[in-house]
């Protein structure tokens, strides 16, 4: 019977199942010895149900998503504008490029105290961090995408007497679009990470980061576990959704083989 079961369950499910089993057994063994750190899974499930019923989880998720969305919008717009400028103009690239690449190396966790100082310990500092995290990949990929548009395409536009607007609309943007999309994709992933990090490091207001933080202090550890699971699931769902969207939007890219 065990052999039949072994064949039925996909191989990829075994390690997590075994870990959960070990966790459950370990938690019950440790329970008698007064260790509060390992909580049994049923307690985690109960905490998840509680958070859902009370609406805490929805509120926190909503706030995190709001910070991701607003930070992404700001950072992506700034990144597109900066990337377009440095990608299209050699002068702008020579002027601003070195500074951009140097600043890019500052880890955004290092900017947390700075943002908190200038924007206050609150939502605007958190959104500011998300904006910065989104800006770099979008700007970088936009500029590289524009620079990579083949010279022969540009020449074609010129020989067709395209106006500047037409040149951008018909040649530059379509040519750079796949890489711009790559930048936006990385930007979105970074936005999600930055939002959680900002909520954890600048504890102000609701959010998933604040939720897992509260698990270590006020609420029990099981709340942290629920929060981590939700964060992971959302990140996974987001990357799947973006991959699907990319496949749909950039169908034409596969056509030229």
């Amino acid at each position, binding site marked *: 019977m065990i052999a039949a079961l072994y064949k039925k369950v996909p191989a990829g499910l075994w*390690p997590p199942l075994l870990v959960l089993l070990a966790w459950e057994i370990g938690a019950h063994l440790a329970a008698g010895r007064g260790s509060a750190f390992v909580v049994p899974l049923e307690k985690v499930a109960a905490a998840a149900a509680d958070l859902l019923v009370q609406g805490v989880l929805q509120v926190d998720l909503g706030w995190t998503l709001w910070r991701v969305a607003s930070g992404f919008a700001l950072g992506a717009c700034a990144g597109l504008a900066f990337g377009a400028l440095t990608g299209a103009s050699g002068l702008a690239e020579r*002027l601003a490029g070195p500074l951009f690449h140097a600043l890019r190396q500052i*880890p955004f*966790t*290092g900017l947390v*105290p700075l943002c908190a100082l200038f924007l206050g310990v609150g939502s605007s500092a958190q959104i500011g961090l998300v904006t910065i995290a989104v800006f770099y990949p979008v700007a970088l990929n936009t500029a590289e995408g524009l620079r990579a548009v083949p010279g022969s395409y540009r020449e074609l536009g010129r020989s067709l007497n395209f106006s500047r607007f037409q040149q951008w609309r018909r040649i530059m943007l379509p040519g750079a679009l796949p890489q711009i999309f790559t930048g936006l994709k990385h930007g979105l992933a970074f936005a999600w990470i930055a939002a959680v990090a900002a909520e954890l490091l600048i504890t102000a207001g609701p959010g998933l980061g604040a939720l897992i933080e509260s698990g270590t202090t006020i609420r029990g550890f099981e709340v942290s*576990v629920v929060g981590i699971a939700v964060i*992971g699931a959302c990140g996974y769902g987001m990357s799947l959704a973006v991959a699907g969207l990319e496949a749909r939007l950039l169908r034409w890219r596969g056509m030229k083989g």
Partner: protein
Amino acid sequence: MQAVKPRIEAVAAAAPHRSGVAARPAAAWPRVRGQAAAVAMGALLPLALLVLWQLAARHQWVGSGTLVAPRQVYDTLAEFYADGTLGQDFRASLRRVLVGYAAGAALGLLFAIAAGASRRVAAAFLPSFHVLRQVPVIAWLPLAIFLAGFGEGFKIAMVAIAAFFPAALNALDGIRGVPPALLELGRSLCFSRLQALRRVVLPYALPDIATGLRLSLSRSWMIVVAAEMIASTVGVGYRMNWARQLFQVDIVFAGVLITGAVGLAIDIGLRLAFRPVTAWRGVRQ
């Protein structure tokens, strides 16, 4: 933060050496002058911003007291350097990074080799791996604190987690990308598994492994700063957070400079260090 993975043109028959073409003396001068001009151009904007910053701070254009002059940031840095605080914080952070990175990156490489070598290991562990790598490393913080306490352990654990995923992911990509023809060649030469790994798979995957190791170290540095902000009594991240709470703006700026400089040093340093092993396959870095 998953790897911004350079797309690799899998050129199986790449020339093993890119001959170092030495510039002829006659051509060298214009190139040096061109580089000098580029450096001057690149320095223009930072210098202008520095002057603007100094003026803004002196005349209090922005937020009273929150903007300190670059001069003061420099003085603070010099002072911290002189009294040893800087060295102490820096050494503490560096130690955590190195220990955690060594453990995390080594585990990541081993995992990638195991998953690349055995279809069974891959089928069993890769699904979990791909789900777990979607969890932002920083979200593991509470878990790490619970499991390892507020001491050194959790910071090193966080760094190890941060180093594990990029190292494993890139190595895995590299190993997966080995052309079947090369593996076939190994088989026809009656290579043992270990020989195939040593002579075929690892050399081919080396550029990707190097990329992974570089990203891992950058990520490690980022995470150690965050972990130190949460709970620490020494370290660059701790110093910055402490200064923020006391509104010591100059120290915060000095901290940003240091974290940025270390990030830059890691990126450039490892790119240069790995160049001998990455150049041959034309990896864009």
